[in-house]
């Protein structure tokens, strides 16, 4: 199996977002960047499949030099190769997916794994777009995956249920939390990752289609009132919910 896994480089979940000076993106100062958490499930799944069925895992990331750190993490976890699709500009999901799909057209993977969404722009689009650009099917928000005899079976999380999906290969899978428990890179893996080269290719050009007009902080929520302490405050809380908030 030839498996491509796409990883993105995002601010960690502790980040307190400040709007940058351009008024359209976040202020990156003091922000700690990490591998997108959902992409770790994608990498782990790729490695598990390779360990079972053999083959190769190539990690892809589209962006600037900073993304090499995230590619190194994928290598340290166990990916065989890493490719940086170089582009320093801001891209929307459409343009990111175009860049990835163009590269994959020549790589011809049997399986493409992505995280279901990146935790910065929360689009949940790249998997579906890449699949359609390549003319192959996709399964998003996957919490279970089995591949046998050229057939793929997955479970997809929907509201209050799982859809059991059968799909043909090649296929794009967008990983959701629950798919697996991502491994920590071993010390040996980290040492080896330092020596593995990261191939650099200019990302295919593509125009963003969702234009950001401006970024703002959501209205600050005013801290409300402390109704009281312990069980004694309960009757007053219920009264407020009924009479003031009118939500119950």
């Amino acid at each position: 199996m030839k498996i491509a896994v796409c990883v993105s480089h995002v601010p960690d979940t502790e980040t307190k977002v400040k709007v940058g000076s351009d008024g359209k993106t976040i202020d990156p100062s003091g922000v700690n960047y990490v591998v997108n958490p959902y992409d770790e499930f994608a990498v782990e799944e790729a490695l598990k499949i390779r360990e079972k069925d053999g083959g190769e895992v190539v990690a892809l990331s589209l962006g600037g030099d900073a993304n090499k750190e995230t590619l190194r993490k994928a290598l340290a976890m166990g990916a065989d190769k890493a490719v940086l699709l170089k582009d320093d500009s801001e891209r929307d999901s459409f343009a990111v997916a175009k860049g990835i799909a163009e590269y994959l057209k020549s790589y011809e993977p049997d399986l493409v794994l992505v995280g279901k969404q990146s935790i910065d722009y929360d689009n949940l689009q790249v998997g579906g777009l890449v699949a359609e650009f390549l003319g192959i099917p996709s399964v998003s928000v996957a919490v279970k995956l089995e591949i046998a005899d050229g057939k793929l079976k997955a479970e997809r999380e929907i509201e209050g249920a799982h859809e059991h999906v059968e799909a043909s290969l090649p296929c794009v899978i967008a990983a959701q939390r629950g798919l697996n428990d991502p491994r920590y890179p071993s010390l040996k893996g980290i040492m080896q990752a330092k020596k593995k080269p990261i191939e650099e290719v200019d990302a295919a050009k593509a125009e963003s289609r969702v234009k950001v007009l401006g970024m703002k902080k959501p209205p600050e929520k005013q801290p409300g009132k402390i109704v009281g302490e312990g069980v004694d405050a309960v009757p007053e809380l219920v009264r407020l919910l009924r009479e003031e908030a009118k939500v119950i």
Partner: protein
Amino acid sequence: MSVTILAIAEQRNGEIKKTSFETIRKAREIADELGGSLKALVIGNTINDAAKELGNYGAEQVVVVNDEKLTHYSTTGYTKVVSEIVKKENTGILFLSATALGKDLAPCVAARVDGAVAADCTELKVDDGDIVATRPVFAGKALIDVKVEAPVKIFTLRPNVFAAGEPSGSEASIEEQSVDISGDDLKTKVTEITETSKGKLDVTEADIIVSGGRGLKSPDNFYLVEELADVLGAAVGASRAVVDAGWRPHDEQVGQTGKTVSPALYIALGISGAVQHLAGMSSSKYIVAVNKDKDAPIFQVADYGIVGDALEVVPALKEELTKALGK
């Protein structure tokens, strides 16, 4: 040239989802502002009667595609149908709800019809003849205003944000269309659907959420959260800490690496309020927090707080609410 908005209404087991009514109502409003028309689209099998209901929310015309092969969702099958109808109706604007189905379908359709998606929008308005969408990013830590520049502009609308309004009592006219579904169109197929919530609401669809965190001290105490949720007809949520600890399933997790929610009422029990949790729930209309630590960050976003041990307060709260609601 006048525009036609196509809005997809979603059915599960032959019933139209509540959030589709919200999407249709908003689509009607935007169509009126643009001086255009609106058509709804429902895909499934023998769903004409359910589709007629959409008249209640502002869709006078509903395109229905009935096919046994479309009874359950299929990414590739539904992508084909929607793309064909978009082309046939020559529509430049497509609305979907940002549900599991809508979020999966929208990008696939975008690629096929030369479109692009503004995902999970929480506000839409018309500015100078074009739609400006507001969407939360970084799980709600910031908002961006966007315009879509593509031949087909696609918007997915976050559930529970837009008002469906009262049903008007009018019935939509149904226009059946057929789309050939064969061979490669069913490269993905749903073979089975298994309920994971035992009939309970999903956090993304609930008007009230009762969430528990570390302050409950043990997974065995989560029955307190469940019982309170039952009294309120609410969904059960959880903090990342208790999901990571294996106390609760991940599909209950609220926050940046879980679900982002905007219910009318969010009750946080024994949750201190990590940045990533607050991001996922602070757009709730009312927030109640119960926590032992009076300095916990959750109180910064809570409308009403009780400083106290959740294990003591929750049973009292359940009793008081049961009385108040006459149950």
